[in-house]
């Protein structure tokens, strides 16, 4: 009965409704993952520093999983707090800036393929779109710093912008290396081109590019050890010093963690074979563990996300000039050299370019 009623609706309307449900589902998944990521961060860093981390708040008072509800409690607290708008600030831009940071961080997920079957928009220039949209996130930070009309915020925004612009170039070159190997800008096609087991994934032949991509990703998301933009000992908290409540949550927490997950996902898709199984080629082709599946992608993404937390707990913060030196004078030349090496590999038909 219900199915009949559903079928009577026009086709366009039905596909629109399904599309909206898919989009909302992916966004919700990302937001919940961000919440759990903040919990994981505090737990992992707590473990590394030999302390407990959050261990009190339970889901509806249930006697297990103590502390898992901590991020949700934090979100509720942030949303209920007063939003303070500084008197001398540019009020419109002050409130628009968090949205400008949030929108690119969420909209980039449109082109990410989660499994062989599920991708919101399977477009040809997917990788290019990812680059374009991630480069927009910097506006949220710059405007937040400027609109607040505070010295510390402006200094933090300047640092952050210079850092993001510098590392974007190395990141772009690393992606050029990947698309040279895959011969396509479509993310699904890039994953497909790595099929055939662990040694066919691009981490082997593009290892320097993977390292550079991941480190640039850490710098792009302003994470430790590249977090001078919010260096609390020098400029209080950088660009988000004047923000409070819901604007703080949407400006700082959500985009930063969503971008972290995005960088980890892209690294998994491009260098670790995405949803492909590592046991492909080892087991028989019809074995359960040799099938491509979302689970493999989730595992690989978790690996990279753990590295984010691990680095934050272990490395001291870079000095500003060291960050600039690493980005401009080390990473960019290295990527260009490796693209040259790739040309040689392609010429002699080695690795990903092997015939047959």
């Amino acid at each position: 009965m219900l199915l009949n009623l559903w079928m009577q609706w026009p086709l366009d309307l039905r596909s629109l409704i399904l599309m909206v449900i898919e989009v909302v589902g992916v966004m919700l998944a990302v937001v919940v993952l961000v919440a759990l990521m903040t919990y994981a961060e505090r737990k992992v860093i707590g473990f590394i520093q030999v302390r407990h981390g959050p261990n009190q708040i339970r889901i509806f008072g249930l006697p297990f999983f103590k502390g898992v509800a901590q991020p949700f409690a934090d979100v509720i607290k942030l949303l209920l707090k007063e939003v303070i708008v500084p008197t001398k600030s540019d009020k419109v831009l002050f409130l628009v800036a968090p949205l400008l940071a949030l929108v690119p961080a969420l909209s980039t997920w449109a082109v990410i393929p989660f499994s062989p079957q599920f991708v919101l928009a399977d477009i040809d220039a997917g990788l290019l779109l990812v680059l374009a949209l991630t480069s927009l996130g910097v506006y949220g930070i710059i405007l937040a710093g400027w609109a607040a009309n505070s010295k510390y915020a402006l200094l933090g925004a300047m640092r952050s912008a210079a850092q993001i612009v510098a590392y974007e170039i190395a990141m772009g070159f690393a992606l050029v290396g990947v698309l040279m190997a895959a011969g396509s800008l479509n993310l699904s096609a890039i994953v497909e081109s790595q099929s055939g087991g662990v040694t066919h994934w691009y981490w082997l032949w593009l290892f320097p590019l993977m390292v550079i991509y991941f480190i640039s990703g850490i710098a792009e998301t302003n994470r430790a050890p590249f977090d001078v933009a919010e260096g609390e000992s020098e400029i209080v908290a950088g660009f988000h010093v004047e923000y409070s409540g819901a604007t703080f949550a949407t400006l700082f927490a959500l985009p930063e963690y969503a971008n972290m997950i995005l960088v980890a996902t892209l690294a998994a898709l491009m260098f670790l074979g995405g949803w492909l199984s590592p046991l492909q080629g080892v087991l028989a082709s019809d074995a359960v563990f040799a099938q491509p599946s979302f689970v493999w992608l989730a595992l690989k993404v978790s690996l990279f996300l753990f590295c984010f937390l691990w680095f934050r707990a272990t490395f001291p913060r870079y000095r500003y000039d060291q960050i600039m030196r690493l980005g401009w004078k080390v990473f960019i030349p290295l990527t260009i050299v490796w693209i040259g090496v790739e040309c040689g590999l392609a010429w002699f038909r080695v690795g990903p370019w092997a015939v047959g």
Partner: protein
Amino acid sequence: MLTTILFYVFATVLVASALGVVLSKNPVHAALALVLAFFNSAALWLLLQAEFLGIVLVLVYVGAVMVLFLFVVMMLDINIAQLREGFTRYAPLGVLVAAIMVAEITYVVWVRHLGLDLSSWAPAMPVGFSNTKALGALLYTDYLLPFQLAAVVLLVAMVAAISLTMRKRPGYKQQDIAAQVAVRRQDRVRIMKVDSEQVR
């Protein structure tokens, strides 16, 4: 139908934001309006099935050029009142330049048609046609030499810009990071053997 509606929406926002660039008092607002204008023109290109050009416009202009632009504009301390002093003096000149621009655009669009037959649109591309691939094939075969020349021109410009900032001035101190990294313990620390003093 939907495409037409989208076109008019994007075109309206584009024109409005272009006006915003010229009319807004605050230079930061003007730069942001320019960003919005770039974004909408990229959307218009996407409607014309030029997805590569559209995305590259966002990537290069919005993602890199305008960020640096905004960066500089934010650092400027502009006195608006001082800027407005000469407004009436230079207004006739501005009107003249604007009139010439409008006349030129009218001439190009209406009189010459740019060799386009506007009565019939270009045929829609077949399904699976990759704009990016076609562009790449053209750039790296037929137009290889101009493409490389443009790259070299840009490189020369970049080298020139960098060399302008590389000037030596007296009293300029710089860190030598390689030297810092290469420092060993014996360069910095000297262990002295001091005889313990006699207790009296």
